[in-house]
C-alpha cells in the first residue's frame, strides 16, 4: 500500500481528554453528584443455593433517610438477561431484579435506597432474610452429575452446536498428539468499579441512565423492555469509562438503578464496592480445554479438534454464545483442512462468569498454542519454523465463517519478531545458562489473531453524523464507547484528516442514545474498523456537500472547486479562498441549508489481526517465582492511527497476560461456593516492578476497507501473551505445565516432581 504522509493519522498525539484526566477534571459516573441524589446499597445473600422465604425489613425502615427497601417480595418478576446487547438477540433470560431462588453465595437479596451511602448500608445490615437451603453444585463435576441439584429449571448443562470444517474423525496423519489446558477465573480489574446514575423525570416520564458502558443501545433495550417503557423515553448516556476489559459490556446494575429511579421519581446512584465488582459483576470463565491434533512428519497440520468445558457460574448469561464463538475462532491463524470443536457450558452455584476481553480468542488460542508448542517439541522443530509451515497467507479462506482472513501478514509477524527478539540467539543462550544454578531461563512464543468486526457472525454497520458549525468547526456524532484506549482520538484524527482542519476544531461525542444513530456497542474490536469507516465516509460526503455549496458561492461547478487546508477555491483562481466558516455561513444565511451529513457503512469483511508474542523468563527454582525479563509483541494492525496508544494497548495485553499465565486467580471454595478472594490484598497482579519494558512492533500494510488501512488491536494484544509465557516457563524447566496460573506453588511442585522422577530413574 502506498504510504502517504498524513497530518494526524499515524502521529502520536496522546489521548483524547488527557488534560482532563491529569487534572482530575474529568467526571466519571461515580463523580456525578447531584443535589438530592439518592444512593443504593445492596445486601448480599448468605447461601450458595436455596430460596428466600421471608424478609423482615422493619429494622431497615427505622434507619433515617431510607426511601425504599427492595426484595423479591415487592419487585417485578420480569426476566431479563445481562448479556443481551441488542433488542433482537435471543438470550437465556434467567435473571430477575431479586429472585427468590438464590443461586450463588453473595447474590443480591435486597437493596436499600437512602439519602446517603452510609444510611443505605446501615439499613441493608438490618434487613433479615430467611432462607430455605438446597444442596449446592459448586464444581463443574458436581453440576454435571445426573442427580445434581437443578440450578435452573431447564437444567445445568448447555451443549453448543459443534463447529465443524472438513472431517476430523476421518482424516489421518503420522502423528496424533493430545494436550489439555486449564484457565482459572480472573477478575477484569477495571480500576473503576461499576457506577450507574439514573434519573426519572416525573413530568416527561423520561428515564436517563449514565453509565460507563460498552453497549448503550443494548442497555436501553433491556431497560425499556424491563420497565415496559418505549425506547424513545429511555436515554442511555455513556460516561467516561475507567477501564472495562469486557466487564462493562453487560447490563449488570443498570436495571436496579433504573427501577429505583422510576419507582421513586428521583436521581439515584449505585457504585459497586471492589468486593461487589469481583463477586457480583462477572469473572473470566474457568475453562477446561482438550486438544487433539493430527500432524504429518514434516510438521504440516492435517486436523485439530478441541473440546471445551466452561463453568458459567450461577447464570448462563453470555456463556452459550461465548462457548460457540470460541469454536468459530478455530480457523483464524492456521491452514488446517479438518477442524472440529465441541463446547459445553455448565451452570454451578458460584459467582457468574462472562464477557472478557477477546471473547473466546484468549481461551481457544491458549489451548492450541500450548498444543502446537508441544507438537513442535515432539517433532524437534523450532516453534517458529513449525508455525511458518502452517500459518495463513493473505486472503486465505477463514474456514469457520467462509470469509477471507484479509490482507494479513502472519509470516512477517513471525519473521520480524524472530529477528527483533533475537529468538535463535536467546534460545541458545538460555539453554546454556540452564546447565546449573538456582535460576532457569526460557524463551517462549505464541501466535494469535482476532476480529475487526462482528461480521459475519451478524451484520455489522457503523453510523456517523457530522455537522459543520457556523464557525467552521466540526461536531461528529458517532455511537462510540471509548474504553480509555484512544478510540475517540482516532475518530478525531480521521475527521480532521479528511476535513483538513485543525484537530482542536473537531469534537467527537461519545454515545448518547437520544441523539446518536444506532450502534451495536464497542466490542469485538470493531470500533476503529467499522466506526472509523463510518466517520471517514461521513466526512468525505460532508466535504462534497460543502464543495457544492462553495461552488454556488464562487459561481462555479463543484467539479472545478478544489479544497485545501479547510478552504475551497476555483482551480483557475487559487488566490480567492472560501473557508469552511464562510461556506457554512453562506449555507445558513443565503441558501437555507445546514451543512450536515449522515452516513452508514456495512462491513463486508472481517480482517484478521495477526499478533505474535515473544518472551523470556527467569524462573527461581527456590521460590518458584517467574520474572519476565523481556518481551516483544508484533502486531499486524493495518495502520496504527494512534501509534502511542497502540503501544499502550500492547502494555495492557502484557500486564493482563502475565496475570492470566502467572499469578491471577479468583478461587472458589469447593465446599461452600464462597468466592475466596474478594479484594486486592490476596490477588496478585503485575505491577510497575513486574512488567518489563516491553517492545512493540507494528506491521502496517493497510487493509483495503479499514480507515486509512486500520484494522484492530484492542483485544488481540492479550491473546498470545499467556501461551507464550507458558512456553517460556516450560522451556526453562523442561516441563509441560498447562494448568494456569503457573503460580510459585505450581512451579515448585513441578520441580519437586521432576526431581523425584530423576531420582527414580537413577
Amino acid at each position, binding site marked *: 500500500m502506498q504510504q502517504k504522509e498524513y497530518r494526524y493519522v499515524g502521529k502520536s498525539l496522546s*489521548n483524547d481528554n488527557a*488534560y482532563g484526566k491529569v*487534572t482530575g477534571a474529568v467526571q466519571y459516573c461515580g463523580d456525578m453528584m447531584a443535589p438530592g441524589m439518592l444512593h443504593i446499597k445492596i445486601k448480599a445473600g448468605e447461601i450458595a443455593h436455596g430460596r428466600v422465604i421471608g424478609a423482615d425489613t422493619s429494622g431497615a425502615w427505622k434507619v433515617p433517610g431510607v426511601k425504599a427497601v427492595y426484595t423479591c417480595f415487592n419487585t417485578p418478576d420480569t426476566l431479563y438477561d445481562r448479556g443481551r446487547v441488542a433488542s433482537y438477540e435471543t438470550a437465556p433470560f434467567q435473571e430477575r431484579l431479586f429472585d427468590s431462588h438464590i443461586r450463588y453465595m453473595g447474590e443480591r437479596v435486597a437493596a436499600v435506597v437512602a439519602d446517603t451511602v452510609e444510611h443505605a448500608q446501615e439499613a441493608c445490615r438490618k434487613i433479615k432474610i430467611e432462607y430455605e437451603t438446597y444442596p449446592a453444585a459448586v464444581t463443574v463435576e458436581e453440576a454435571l452429575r445426573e442427580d445434581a441439584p437443578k440450578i435452573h429449571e431447564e437444567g445445568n448443562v448447555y451443549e453448543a452446536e459443534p463447529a465443524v470444517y472438513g472431517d476430523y474423525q476421518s482424516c489421518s496423519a503420522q502423528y496424533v498428539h493430545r494436550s489439555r489446558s486449564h484457565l482459572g477465573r480472573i477478575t477484569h480489574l477495571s480500576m473503576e468499579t461499576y457506577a450507574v446514575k439514573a434519573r426519572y423525570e416525573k413530568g416527561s416520564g423520561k428515564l436517563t441512565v449514565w453509565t460507563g458502558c460498552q453497549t448503550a443501545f443494548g442497555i436501553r433495550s433491556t431497560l425499556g423492555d424491563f420497565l415496559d417503557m418505549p425506547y424513545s423515553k429511555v436515554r442511555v448516556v455513556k460516561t467516561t469509562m475507567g477501564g472495562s476489559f469486557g466487564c462493562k459490556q453487560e447490563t449488570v446494575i443498570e436495571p436496579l438503578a433504573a427501577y429505583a429511579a422510576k419507582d421513586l421519581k428521583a436521581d439515584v446512584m449505585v457504585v459497586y464496592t471492589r468486593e461487589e465488582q469481583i463477586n457480583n459483576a462477572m469473572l473470566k470463565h474457568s475453562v477446561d480445554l482438550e486438544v487433539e491434533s493430527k500432524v504429518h512428519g514434516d510438521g504440516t497440520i492435517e486436523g485439530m479438534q478441541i473440546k471445551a468445558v466452561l463453568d458459567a457460574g450461577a447464570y448462563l448469561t453470555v456463556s452459550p454464545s461465548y462457548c460457540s464463538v470460541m469454536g468459530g475462532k478455530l480457523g483464524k491463524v492456521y491452514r488446517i483442512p479438518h477442524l472440529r470443536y465441541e463446547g459445553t457450558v455448565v451452570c454451578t452455584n458460584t459467582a457468574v462468569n462472562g464477557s472478557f476481553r477477546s471473547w473466546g480468542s484468549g481461551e481457544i488460542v491458549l489451548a492450541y498454542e500450548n498444543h502446537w508448542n508441544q507438537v513442535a517439541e515432539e517433532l524437534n522443530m523450532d516453534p517458529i519454523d513449525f508455525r511458518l509451515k502452517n500459518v495463513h497467507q493473505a486472503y486465505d479462506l477463514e474456514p469457520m465463517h467462509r470469509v477471507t482472513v484479509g490482507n494479513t501478514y502472519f509470516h512477517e509477524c513471525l519473521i520480524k519478531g524472530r529477528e527483533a527478539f533475537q529468538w535463535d540467539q536467546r534460545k541458545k543462550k538460555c539453554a546454556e545458562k540452564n546447565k546449573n544454578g538456582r535460576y532457569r531461563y526460557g524463551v517462549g512464543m505464541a501466535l494469535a489473531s482476532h476480529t475487526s468486526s462482528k461480521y459475519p457472525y451478524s451484520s455489522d454497520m457503523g453510523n456517523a453524523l457530522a455537522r459543520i458549525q457556523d464557525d467552521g468547526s466540526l461536531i461528529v456524532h458517532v455511537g462510540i464507547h471509548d474504553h*480509555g484506549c484512544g478510540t475517540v482520538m482516532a475518530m478525531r484524527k480521521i475527521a480532521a484528516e479528511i476535513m483538513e482542519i485543525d484537530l482542536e476544531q473537531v469534537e467527537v461525542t461519545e454515545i448518547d442514545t437520544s441523539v446518536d444513530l444506532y450502534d451495536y456497542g464497542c466490542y469485538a474490536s470493531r470500533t476503529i474498523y467499522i466506526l472509523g469507516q463510518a466517520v471517514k465516509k461521513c466526512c468525505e460526503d460532508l466535504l462534497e456537500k460543502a464543495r457544492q455549496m462553495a461552488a454556488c458561492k464562487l459561481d462555479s461547478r463543484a467539479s472545478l472547486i478544489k479544497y485545501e487546508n479547510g478552504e475551497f477555491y476555483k482551480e483557475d483562481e487559487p488566490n480567492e479562498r472560501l473557508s469552511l466558516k464562510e461556506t457554512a455561513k453562506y449555507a445558513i444565511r443565503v441558501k437555507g441549508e445546514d451543512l450536515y451529513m449522515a452516513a452508514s457503512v456495512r462491513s463486508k469483511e472481517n480482517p484478521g489481526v495477526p499478533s505474535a508474542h515473544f518472551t523470556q523468563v527467569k524462573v527461581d527454582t527456590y521460590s518458584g517465582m517467574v520474572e519476565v525479563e523481556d518481551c516483544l509483541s508484533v502486531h499486524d494492525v493495518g495502520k496504527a492511527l494512534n501509534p502511542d496508544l497502540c503501544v499502550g494497548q500492547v502494555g*495492557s495485553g502484557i500486564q493482563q497476560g502475565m496475570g492470566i499465565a502467572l499469578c491471577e486467580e479468583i478461587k472458589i471454595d469447593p465446599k461452600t461456593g464462597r468466592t475466596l478472594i474478594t479484594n*486486592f490484598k490476596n490477588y496478585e*497482579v503485575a505491577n*510497575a516492578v513486574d512488567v518489563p519494558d516491553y517492545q512493540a512492533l507494528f506491521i502496517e500494510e493497510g487493509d483495503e476497507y479499514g480507515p486509512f488501512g486500520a484494522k484492530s488491536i484492542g483485544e488481540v494484544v492479550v491473546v498470545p501473551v499467556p501461551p507464550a509465557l507458558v512456553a517460556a516457563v516450560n522451556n526453562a524447566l523442561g516441563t509441560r505445565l498447562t494448568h494456569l496460573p503457573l503460580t510459585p506453588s505450581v512451579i515448585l511442585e513441578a520441580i519437586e516432581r521432576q526431581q523425584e522422577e530423576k531420582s527414580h530413574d537413577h
Partner: protein
Amino acid sequence: MIINFTVNGKSVSMDVMPQKRLLDFIREDLLLTGTKEGCAEGECGACTVILNKKAVHSCLTMTGQLDGGELMTVEGLEKDGELDVLQKMFIKKSAVQCGFCTSGMLMSAKALLMENPHPTQEEIKRAIAGNICRCGGYREIKEAVASAAEMEKEE
C-alpha cells in the same frame, strides 16, 4: 470537630467528622472528585494523595489526621493555569489511558520527586509499585516520571 489544614495551598477551617475516611471527605466535602476509590483497602493506589509531603492512601486515612496538616490532591498540581511538569509529561509520553489510576499515579510520583528530585529508574518503579494500572501503561508512566525529573533538573 473543627480542624485547620491547607488544601492545595489554601488555608481551611472546617467542622468535620474526624472518623470519616479522608477519601470521602475529599470527594464529598471538599468536592474534589479527582481522587478515586479503587479498592478501599490501600492496595491499588487510586486514592493516593499527599499529606504533609508524603503519599498516603486516603481510603485508609481518617479526616481527623488532617488537622494542622498540608493536603495536596491532583487538583492542586496545576498552578495558575500551568500544568505541573509531571502532568505535562504524562500527556506528552501518552501515559494516560482510561485515567482512573492517573491521579493516584501522579500523586505517588509527585511525592517521590518532592523527596528525591533525581530518582533512578529503580526508585521510580518502587514509588509507583503500589499503584495498579490495568491499562498497563507502566512503561509510559515510568518514562513520564523520568522525563519530569530530567526537566526539573534542567530548570
